[in-house]
């Protein structure tokens, strides 16, 4: 049967089990939106800015593991997607972005709202397509979803000119994909697995560094089996948080610039690093020449280009983390690293994370800890980028798999609210906690409109310190306390929420924190909490830029954070 390009696209999305599209329409994508009326099974969530469409698609993809889909029109619609696409690229998130393009005869003529979006997104997509004929639409969508999801996931952009959207062709989704240039390696090489197992057996001070790859490939059980069997402590990366239960006895925090001092010191002391599904980002490694100076390195990753890119590797294993761990665990003996674990306990006692109590002041760490208590560490938490993000990573202990959604690689301020939109659509059965900074929140706060219209159950907690806080902290520490452009005026967030009919509260006193959180949780649907916190609180520990992990600056305060850890979870 003949169909239009738009119908073929919608049919193809249906075949890929797409349930929801985040987007905004415009001139060049009108035929496709018109066709959406024939496909009620494709829910459309109208966002208020295309950047939010891409972040929402990311949020959805991160919580469901399925590719998130976003639509935008040509020109400014497409360029507005760029930040979100770049974010998805750096955090290996499967997103399929569909953009309208001016009709084929106008391409290259600088027509109204024409922009070369495939050219612009070339370095920030896993792959992209400009569809030149309606008969290519089905094949392109099939390929796009396959590429987005498989191997190391990433964003794909499909640019469809307006005439292709209305031209007719046969719909056939049965053709096999022929992709001679794309064959992700899924299984680790057996000889390498044995070599790794031997290193693990011989190591006296091994650590696992668990990255986002564990979450992407859902290798939670395999990771736990490896850690428990061989008694190896697990340190995560920022994006690896929630890949391993935070209150597990073998959990030793997370590494990097604002990771726990004891985690960073443990890596410094280790004689073996087993890096799983992570890419040795500079924020994670600190000065790379001083990273794990005593350790041999086993690196497991699905992307061969990540092996040896930043850190010299002794045993590289290319493959899907879940498959690799499953096969490798067979070669792992039950080990006893008691001495090392005791050493780490001492290390942790000596270099603990600072307390959330903040000597009775209204500090954001305290607020985040109270949110953790109220949600029993079970909530899906989405953050923006900045101090609030680091405090959330430090003081919300994540026990449930894949519950920490944050922008790691690109560090996109304004990620939190739109990504929460996607997360709320992907996990409709629960409330999503959106922990925001006042600076970060103001970058995308127009999405309150989307949240109100879609009646999404998002609890927004703004850590409002009146500054672009992380930058202020750098100015305080490295730029002679000259606060250029960091003091930040804020609107009355409660009134702002009110304008969208979203209930909200200002919280300025410690004793009001718990009741406010309770009130937000009891309220069905969205609720905004504006926590007015200490303006000049700093994030500690901190590995100064250019320093190695061992040179971590610790919290100047004496109180420490302790919580009971369990031997099994």
């Amino acid at each position: 049967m003949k169909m239009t390009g738009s119908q073929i696209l919608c049919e193809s999305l249906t075949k890929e089990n797409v349930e929801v599209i985040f987007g905004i329409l415009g001139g060049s994508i009108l035929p496709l939106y018109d066709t959406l009326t024939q496909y009620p099974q494709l829910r459309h969530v109208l966002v208020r800015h295309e950047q939010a469409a891409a972040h929402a698609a990311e949020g959805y993809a991160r919580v469901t593991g399925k590719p998130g889909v976003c639509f935008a029109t040509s020109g400014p619609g497409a360029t507005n997607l760029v930040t979100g696409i770049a974010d998805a690229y750096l955090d290996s998130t499967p997103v399929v972005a569909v953009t309208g393009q001016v009709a084929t005869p106008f391409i290259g003529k600088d027509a109204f709202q024409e922009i070369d979006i495939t050219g612009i997104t070339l370095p920030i997509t896993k792959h992209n397509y400009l569809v030149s004929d309606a008969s290519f639409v089905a094949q392109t969508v099939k390929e796009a979803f396959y590429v987005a999801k498989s191997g190391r996931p990433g964003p794909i952009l499909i640019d469809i000119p307006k005439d292709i959207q209305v031209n007719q062709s046969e719909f056939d989704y049965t053709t096999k994909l022929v992709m001679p240039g794309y064959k992700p390696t899924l299984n680790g090489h057996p000889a390498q697995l044995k070599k790794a197992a031997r290193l693990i057996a011989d190591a006296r001070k091994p650590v696992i560094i668990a990255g986002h790859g564990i979450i992407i490939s859902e290798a939670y059980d395999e990771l736990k089996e490896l850690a428990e069997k061989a008694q190896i402590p697990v340190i995560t990366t920022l994006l690896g948080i929630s890949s391993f239960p935070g209150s597990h006895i073998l959990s030793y925090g997370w590494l990097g610039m604002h990771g726990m001092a004891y985690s960073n010191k443990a890596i410094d002391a280790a004689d073996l690093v087993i890096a799983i599904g992570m890419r040795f980002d500079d924020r994670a490694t600190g000065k790379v020449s001083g990273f794990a100076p005593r350790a041999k390195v086993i690196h497991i990753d699905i992307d061969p280009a990540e092996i040896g890119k930043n850190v010299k590797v002794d045993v590289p294993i290319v493959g899907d983390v879940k498959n690799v761990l499953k096969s490798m665990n067979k070669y792992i003996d039950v080990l006893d690293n008691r001495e090392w674990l005791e050493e780490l306990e001492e290390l942790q006692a000596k270099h603990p994370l600072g307390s959330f109590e903040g000597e009775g002041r209204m500090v954001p760490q305290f607020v985040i800890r109270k949110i953790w208590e109220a949600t029993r560490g079970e909530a899906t938490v989405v953050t923006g980028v900045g101090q609030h993000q680091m405090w959330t990573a430090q003081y919300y202990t994540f026990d449930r798999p894949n519950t920490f959604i944050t922008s790691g690689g690109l560090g996109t301020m304004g990620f939190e609210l739109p990504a929460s939109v996607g997360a709320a659509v992907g996990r409709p059965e629960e409330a999503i906690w959106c922990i925001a900074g006042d600076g970060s929140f103001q970058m995308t706060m127009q999405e309150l409109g989307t949240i109100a219209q879609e009646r999404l159950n998002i609890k927004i907690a703004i850590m409002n310190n009146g500054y672009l806080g992380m930058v202020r902290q750098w100015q305080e520490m490295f730029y002679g306390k000259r606060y250029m452009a960091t003091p930040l005026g804020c609107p009355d967030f409660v009134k702002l929420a009110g304008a969208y009919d979203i209930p909200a509260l200002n919280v300025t006193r410690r004793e009001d924190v718990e009741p406010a959180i309770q009130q937000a949780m009891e309220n069905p649907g969205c609720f905004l909490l504006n926590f007015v916190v200490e303006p000049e609180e700093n994030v500690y520990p901190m590995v100064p830029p250019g320093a190695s992990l061992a040179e971590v600056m610790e919290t100047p305060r004496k109180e420490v954070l302790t919580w009971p850890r369990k031997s099994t979870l």
Partner: protein
Amino acid sequence: MATQKHTIVALVLDKPGVFNRISSLFRRRGFNMDSIAVGHSELHNISRVTIVVDGSTVQVEQVRKQLEKNIDVVKVTDITQRDTITRELALIKVHANPGTRSEIIQIVTIFRAKIVDVSADSLTVEVTGDTPKVDTLYKLLKAFGIKEIARTGCIAMTRGDNASI
């Protein structure tokens, strides 16, 4: 880190934009490209690209892996360490007058190059060979004044029965 010229051979799908993807990758990752040559391969719809890149072994291994990650790139091999034939072609238009013409022709003959065009005050020379040969001829002809030079960039193939890639 010691750098060295590496010759990389890639088979890529013959599709619009592939060349852009490759050059964009070199620019973005800061890899230093000396030359690039593209043409059809023995396979249907697949082009062969030869890239000469300057870098350390570690850097060039990154180049190879990053290229291979590209979905339109089928295969990439670094053939630097192998026994290869490498060739490039250059056209050199050199100043010539009745006084210098015969001397230029002598040099060209020694290099087994060809004169492909003659006019009142220039000669155009066609030379094929590996890069050092072309460089040397260029240097010698420079004394007479070069009007113009066009080089194809290197292409390469391994010696013997086996395919390069």
